[in-house]
């Protein structure tokens, strides 16, 4: 009964218990401290779990001592560890650096409630990553989504509210579809535990119900993951949410849904549905490609920076899905590495936008014209993280792009087509990131001077914690671009593990 063996459970419990504590605290500083402390502790637990997983393989934890498959099991393997790192890391960085940005968006009294919702979201997302059975995934998914709706609705602009309703409705439909699918599988197998499902499903002879279940689950999770064409909730939700919420969400929420999709598919369905690999690839790959193309195309024409980056996220999710749809170790490694690297790049970019927003009133192209003169450090960080998004060598984004292109080319003629699509969208990314950079450095004085918000702080261009956070993430992008051993190694273990379930 050592402490370290309780870690999987603690991963969820720590943020979950902090939530009511935070809510009861008076004053935003205390609330922020508690929330940040819990988030950092969750990050430490995630790191510890990763180290254990690298040593031991898969960690299994039986809740309350009841053994699987009857009890609730928490399973942590390489993929879960990767996701936990992304989630807790994004949360910690966003919380540590985002205090001042948040203070701009809501009153003192509301902040403890906001942080409480953040903690619940963190608990939910961590829960999804470690849950070992399908229904708990649903529960945690809904917990995190509900908290997510609250976080998005906290945005200062009133348009955050219709965005939240749209997100809520689409998210709930998605979760409910997922629930139907799980119900179907339960009907056929009588179990909810992933590992058990895999075994029991092999004994089932009727293929149709399983196929139906797979369909429901895939569509449901695609809604949550903003896979084209079910991505409509994403641009507005990202646009109107408070900036650090966008940074947090862009880094992890959709990836967690993709994680569930891939795990379900590979662990449960691949082995048991004949010809599923083709169906799976044939269904997901075109959607991924469309998402990449549409996302990039719209991003090129957008004028508001947050929406631009939101559509860019749709394209990036397409990358992850494309890599995953190849179904081999190379493709999955590319997909998982990109989950990690995209979180670094996009999270960093949204944090920089938060810094920009503190200086200027709005975040349209006009508003940031020539901003680099007043905010050289933040603009430089935008350049570095933007380069990572594009995939310039030396940055983390290059590594995942390389892996994706290699995996694609290895797939034959259609793979070459996919590679061409990825290259085209990279060029589009060069264009839209460059548009912003040019406007930052060379733009003339803003034509419609947005009401300048009172200077963030008299001396520095942005609050020091925010600058530290931004530059920390930017440097991390470069570090993992030159020394990608850790994320790539972890992704490869995860990919190998998933592929081992294939027939």
């Amino acid at each position, binding site marked *: 009964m050592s402490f370290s063996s309780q870690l999987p459970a603690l991963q969820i419990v720590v943020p979950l218990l902090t939530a009511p504590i935070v809510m009861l605290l008076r004053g935003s500083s205390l609330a922020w401290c508690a929330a940040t402390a819990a988030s950092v502790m969750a990050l430490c637990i995630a790191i510890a779990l990763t180290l254990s997983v690298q040593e031991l393989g898969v960690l299994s934890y039986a809740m309350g001592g009841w053994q699987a498959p009857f009890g609730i099991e928490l399973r942590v393997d390489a993929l879960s560890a990767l996701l936990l790192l992304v989630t807790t890391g994004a949360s910690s960085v966003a919380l540590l650096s985002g205090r001042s940005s948040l203070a701009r968006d809501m009153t003192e009294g509301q902040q403890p409630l906001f942080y409480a919702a953040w903690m619940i979201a963190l608990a939910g997302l961590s829960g999804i990553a470690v849950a070992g059975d399908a229904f708990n995934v649903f529960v945690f998914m809904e917990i995190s989504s509900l908290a997510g709706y609250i976080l998005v609705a906290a945005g200062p602009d009133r348009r955050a509210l219709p965005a939240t309703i749209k997100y809520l409705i689409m998210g709930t439909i998605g979760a409910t579809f997922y629930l139907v699918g799980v119900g179907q599988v339960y009907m056929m197998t009588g179990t909810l535990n992933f590992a058990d499902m895999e075994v029991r499903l092999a004994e089932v002879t009727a293929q149709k119900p399983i196929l139906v279940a797979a369909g429901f689950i895939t569509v449901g999770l695609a809604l949550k993951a903003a896979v084209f064409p079910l991505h409509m909730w994403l641009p507005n939700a990202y646009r109107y949410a408070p900036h650090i919420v966008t940074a947090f969400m862009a880094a992890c929420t959709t990836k967690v849904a993709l994680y569930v999709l891939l795990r379900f598919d590979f662990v449960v369905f691949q082995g048991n549905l004949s010809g599923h690999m083709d169906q799976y690839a044939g269904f997901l790959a075109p959607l991924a490609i469309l998402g990449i193309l549409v996302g990039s195309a719209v991003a090129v024409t957008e004028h508001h920076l947050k929406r631009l980056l939101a559509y860019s996220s749709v394209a990036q999710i397409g990358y992850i899905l494309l890599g995953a749809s190849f179904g081999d170790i190379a493709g999955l490694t590319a997909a998982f590495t990109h989950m990690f690297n995209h979180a670094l790049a996009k999270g960093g970019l949204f944090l920089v936008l938060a810094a920009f927003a503190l200086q200027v009133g709005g975040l349209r192209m006009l508003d940031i014209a020539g901003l680099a003169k007043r905010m050289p450090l933040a603009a430089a960080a935008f350049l570095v993280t933007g*380069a990572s998004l*594009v*995939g*310039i*060598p*030396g940055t983390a984004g290059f*590594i995942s792009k*390389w892996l994706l*292109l*290699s995996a694609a*080319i*290895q797939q034959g003629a259609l793979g070459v087509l996919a*590679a061409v699509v990825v*290259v*085209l969208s*990279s*060029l589009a990314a*060069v264009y839209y990131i*460059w548009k912003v950079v*040019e406007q930052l450095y*060379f733009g003339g004085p803003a034509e419609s001077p947005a009401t300048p918000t009172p200077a963030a702080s008299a001396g520095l261009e942005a609050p020091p914690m925010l600058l530290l956070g931004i530059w920390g993430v930017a440097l991390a992008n470069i570090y993992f671009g*030159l*020394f*990608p*051993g850790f994320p*790539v*190694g972890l992704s490869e273990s995860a990919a190998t593990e998933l592929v081992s379930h294939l027939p």
Partner: protein
Amino acid sequence: MSAATTILLSLLLPLSGAVLISLSGRWPNLRETITLVTAVAVALLVLSLVPEVQAGGRPELLVAQLFGDLQIAFTVEPLGMLFAALAATLWIVNSIYSIGYMRGNNEKKQTRFYVCFAIAIAAALGVAFAGNLLTLFLCYEILTLSTYPLVSHKGDRATVASARVYLGILLVTSIGLLLPAIIWTYLLAGTLSFSPDGILAGHISGPAVGLLLAMYVFGVGKAAVMPVHRWLPAAMVAPTPVSALLHAVAVVKAGVFTITKVIIYVFGVDNLFAEPSSGWLLYAAAFTVIAASVVALRQQNLKRMLAYSTIGQLSYVIMAAAVLTPLSEIGAAVHIVAHAFGKITLFFAAGAIYTAAKKTELSQLSGIGARMPWTMTAFTIGALSMIGVPPMGGFVSKWFILAGAFQSDNYVAIFTVILSTALTAAYFLPVIFAVWFGREVPGGKEHGEAPWPMVLALTLTALATLGFFFFNQPVLELESQLVTVTG
């Protein structure tokens, strides 16, 4: 110190110099001194590697192991040594010139200029020393990005628009063509490290060779093979020191260097020679040579004329490499040097004319020889070297290229060389004539020579152009190793 340390230092020194330069922005003299000292130190470090490479050694440095077989690693071989030595030594001269130019024209943002220059030189050295395609690609992109602020230095609308063309073409070609080519190579060969016999030997044949070669040649936009050449005239909006060192020496040479390296160390000369589908390269390069010369004929702006001349001369190198005989490979390498000396002199002269007289068009240059004898003598030497007249350095490389072409009865190459020589004479000689023997346009302002650092610099490079004709043994010895390598 060990060779590996030397390589590391020669890459880090310009970068640390950049940092120091950015910190000393407020004291221009200190800043300029740091630039010069860094340049001299880097040149010394780079040149110290020459004896070892001459003797057949190949110093290596491993920086990071990424994953699989991919690494960031550096290896010094004859071609790279040549390019690095060229870039490093000419940086010193160019820094002297820059000081004169920037101060003479009272340019703004000088600190940013020197900082980006140092980073660009570090990137160029990185390209030269790259031990595998990945490292080369990394440094290639850094070179593109670090030269952008230099090209867009002026900061006004037109300049930024041109700089956008510059960046756009270079990034689109490198991400769209070069990167897929590199990945494809990796998937075929399992490695990206350069090898004297070519790493693709046996892994690829038939039309795929031609396709991959095309992806490389057009992906390396810096080599300015038509039609991806438009960035070079667009980059002429940069201050002349940038045009001189980068777009006559470092950036463009990085381009042809990369292609030559790919031909020799990735494909393998013998493999390409045996493969018919690679034959198109000769024609593409020959076309570029002639077309660029024709366009240069019609230019009125001095720098644009020099830009198109550069495009033609770069394709000389590629054409020579594409002839695929030992002598022509040496010719390609030697032309990298000869053209560098000659072109940098020409650009220096152009900048001197601009600084002293604010003149940019060819029509304005009549009779200027009387006022700026040093500058225009250097200009003449450079121009004659471009044409290939002995005793200028350009003659040496043309000799080798022709000899290589004869060696394999390559009539296309021979014809191109002859025709382009004639065309080059056609666009340079009238200028030289007008400069010395023309009547000066009345009403112009009185002026003399440009500031002395600029004149000093262009004198040095003109002497080098002349000197190369007589003292080219070291280069030839170094590059003959390429021949034994390619057999």
